[in-house]
Each structure stands twice: as C-alpha cells, then as structure tokens.
C-alpha cells in the first residue's frame, strides 16, 4: 500500500491534497497514470488519481488539468479562479470568457435568424408563434408588475436579455463535449499545463459581478430618471434622526445588492459544478466496487457499468433546473428593484 491510496471502507480518510504522488510526465492522458495492483478485494483501496482521471475525462469543468505542473500533488482540485487560455490584444483571455463570447454569439445569431423569418403581413410560422408568445408573455408579466408602460418599455429589453443570456450561459456547459476540449500551455522550465478550453461563464465571479453591476447601474439610472434628484432623498434624508438612519440602512442594502446578486448566481452555478464533480467521483468509487478493478479508466466493463448507472445524469438534470431558475431569479430581482426605484417613496 503506497501513500497515495485512500481507504473506502471507513469513508475518506486523510486529506486529499497530501495523498497523491507527482505524476510521470510522458505518455498520453491515460497511460500517464501509474497502475496500482490493489483492488476492491484488497481492502477497498482506490487510487485517488484514478478518481481524478475519471472525473477529468467525464467532466473537465471543475477539476484542473494541471498534471505534472505545480499542482501535481493535489487530488481533487477545485479551481476557483478560471484559467487563462491565452491573450487577446494584450489582455488575458480566460476559458469562462471564451464560453461567454460563444453564448453571446449564439444569442445574436438566434436573434438574427428568428428576426429574418418574422413576417408582419404573412402567415406566421411555428418559430414566430413560439418566440412571440415567449416575449409577449414576459412583456405582459413585466407590465403587470411594474404598472407603468414607459418604464416597461425601457426596462423590458435589458431584463429579457439578462434572462436569456444567463440561461444560455448556464446551459451551455451541459452540451456534451464542452468540458472535453483541452489546450496545452507551455510553462517556464519546459513544463506544460493542460487547461480546459471552455467553462461555464457563471462559475466565474467576474462574470456574475459584471452582470450585477449592469443591473445595479440600470436600477439607479431608472431611479434618477423617474424621480430626478429626489431619488437621493431615499438615502440621504436629514429631516429627522430616524429618517437619517433609515436612509443609511437603505443605502447599505442598496450596495449589498451588488454582493447578493453576483454571489447568488455564482454560488449556485459553482456549487452545481462541484456537485457534478462529486457525482462523477462517486461514479468512479461505485464502479470500482462493482467492477472490482482499480484501473477503471481503461476497463470496458467500467464503461458498461457507467452506461447502466450514470450517477451524474440526474444531478446534471437538477443543475439545468437550477440554471433556468437562477436566470429567472436574477431577471426578476432586477425587475423588482427597478420597480422599487421607480415607485415614489411613501412618507
């Protein structure tokens, strides 16, 4: 029994970060991993690196592919900060940014495609009826909540764009193959790092914070537009000490929206990725129990078992539900805050 083994009989023992050994540098993705002789029959020992390769090959989003680089001694490695996959006009270009650009291009192409087929004088097709129904429904609901046609006309494009963009960005990572593309990055000293080309944009705090800032600026803009400078009276009110402190609390809660909006979306999507990773790890563990061999990455029987009992699939289905829910929550909260800002304060 070497040091890079964990006992499954008594749960996970020890710390993940101190368990594996540095990996060999040569060979391809699979053969790089050392063969371990002990299997389930030998006390239920699973090599952490085999769990990692199983997780890596099935879902490359969360586990880092930095084999043989400076993080070679980590087992399950959750990447908080997205990897830089290159530079564009002198700026770093991360994998989440690339995916968000793809989501934008998809939405623009969809808008162009649908817009070209819409007729106002002919018989509308199925596509037109579907999109008109969707957009019309959201517009009517918004008008009901806001109760102000002028505000609805201004706010509607932004809010439906937020909803559709977050929805597409959340769902794009469930397209098969998105986590499978990898790029190699040369490091100093002849080492190389394997990075994932695509990653869900909302698993990056920069993205969600940018969305929250857009939403925040729009809310304040709408407040000033409808109420003028009187909008500031909500926050800086010197008429009485109580009103002053109420205004101060309003100001703090206004600024806390930036944190809560961005971290709500980020937390849900990031936690979803970790849950999917854990489901894949569980798949590797249970496969090893049933198949009884350690090297599950090369065993066709393990593939068969995985096809019979795909543990990550229900989890991914749940995460798709979370994706549409969070997109709706983000858009609806922006809508409510716009309503709050545009409705005059009753005092």
């Amino acid at each position: 029994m070497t040091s890079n083994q964990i006992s499954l009989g008594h749960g996970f023992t020890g710390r993940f970060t101190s368990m594996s050994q540095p990996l060999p540098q040569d060979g391809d993705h699979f053969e790089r991993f050392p063969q371990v002789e002990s299997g389930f029959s030998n006390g239920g020992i699973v090599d952490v690196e085999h769990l990692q390769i199983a997780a890596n090959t099935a879902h490359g989003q969360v586990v880092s592919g930095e084999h043989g680089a400076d993080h070679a001694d980590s087992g399950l490695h959750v990447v908080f900060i997205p990897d830089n996959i290159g530079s564009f006009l002198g700026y770093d270009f991360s994998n989440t940014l690339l995916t968000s650009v793809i989501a934008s291009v998809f939405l623009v192409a969809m808008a162009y495609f649908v817009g070209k087929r819409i007729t106002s004088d002919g018989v509308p097709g199925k596509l037109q009826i579907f999109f008109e129904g969707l957009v019309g429904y959201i517009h009517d609901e918004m008008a009901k909540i806001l109760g102000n046609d002028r505000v609805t006309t201004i706010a509607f494009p932004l809010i439906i764009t937020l909803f559709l963009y977050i929805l597409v960005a959340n769902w794009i990572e469930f397209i098969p193959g998105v986590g499978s593309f990898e790029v190699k990055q040369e490091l100093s000293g002849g080492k190389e790092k394997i990075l994932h080309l695509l990653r869900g944009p909302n698993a990056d705090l920069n993205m969600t914070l940018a969305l929250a800032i857009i939403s925040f600026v729009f809310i304040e803009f709408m407040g000033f537009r409808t109420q003028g400078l009187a909008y500031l009276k909500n926050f800086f009110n010197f008429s009485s000490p109580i009103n002053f402190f109420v205004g101060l609390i309003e100001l703090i809660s206004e600024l806390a929206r930036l944190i809560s909006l961005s971290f709500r979306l980020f937390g849900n999507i990031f936690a979803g990725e970790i849950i999917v990773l854990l489901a894949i790890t569980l798949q590797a563990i249970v496969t090893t129990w049933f198949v009884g061999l350690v090297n599950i990455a090369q065993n066709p029987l393990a593939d068969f078992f995985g096809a019979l009992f795909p543990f990550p699939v229900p989890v991914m289905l749940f995460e798709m539900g979370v994706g549409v829910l969070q997109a709706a929550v983000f858009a609806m909260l922006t809508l409510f805050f716009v309503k709050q800002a545009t409705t005059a304060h009753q005092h």
Partner: protein
Amino acid sequence: MDPQILAPETFKLLGAGLAIGLGAIGPAIGIGLAAAKAFEAMGRNPEASDNIRTNMILAFALAEALGIFAFVVSILLIFVV
C-alpha cells in the same frame, strides 16, 4: 494527539464549514416561513396567486441574501485567507 490536527488549516476549514452550515439555518427557516404563508394565501385566494408569487420570490431573495453572505465568508476562508 497528531500535531497536524491543530494546524491552522484545520481551523480554517472548520470555520468555513461552520460559517456556511450555521449561516444557512436562518435563511432556510425564513424561506420556509415565507413559502408556507405564501402558499396558504394562494390557497385562500387563488386569484391573487400571481401577485403573491412574485412577492414571495422577492422575500426569498431578501432572506437568501444572508445565506449568500455566509457563503461568501466560507469562500473567503477556503480560497483567500
């Protein structure tokens, strides 16, 4: 006792777990109460369902914000501190 148990990282991880674990209790109760009352109201007055549902989600978001702050503290403890 293993001296590794008393390493700073141990308390960091313990603190992160406690932060999100305890911090999730309050929002959970709050959201549960809000949902219970909202569904009760919808049952009594189904015509007002749409209005109640939208306000319910706003109440969820306000209660959930506290849970998110606990999550932020937990993330900071794990990845930043």
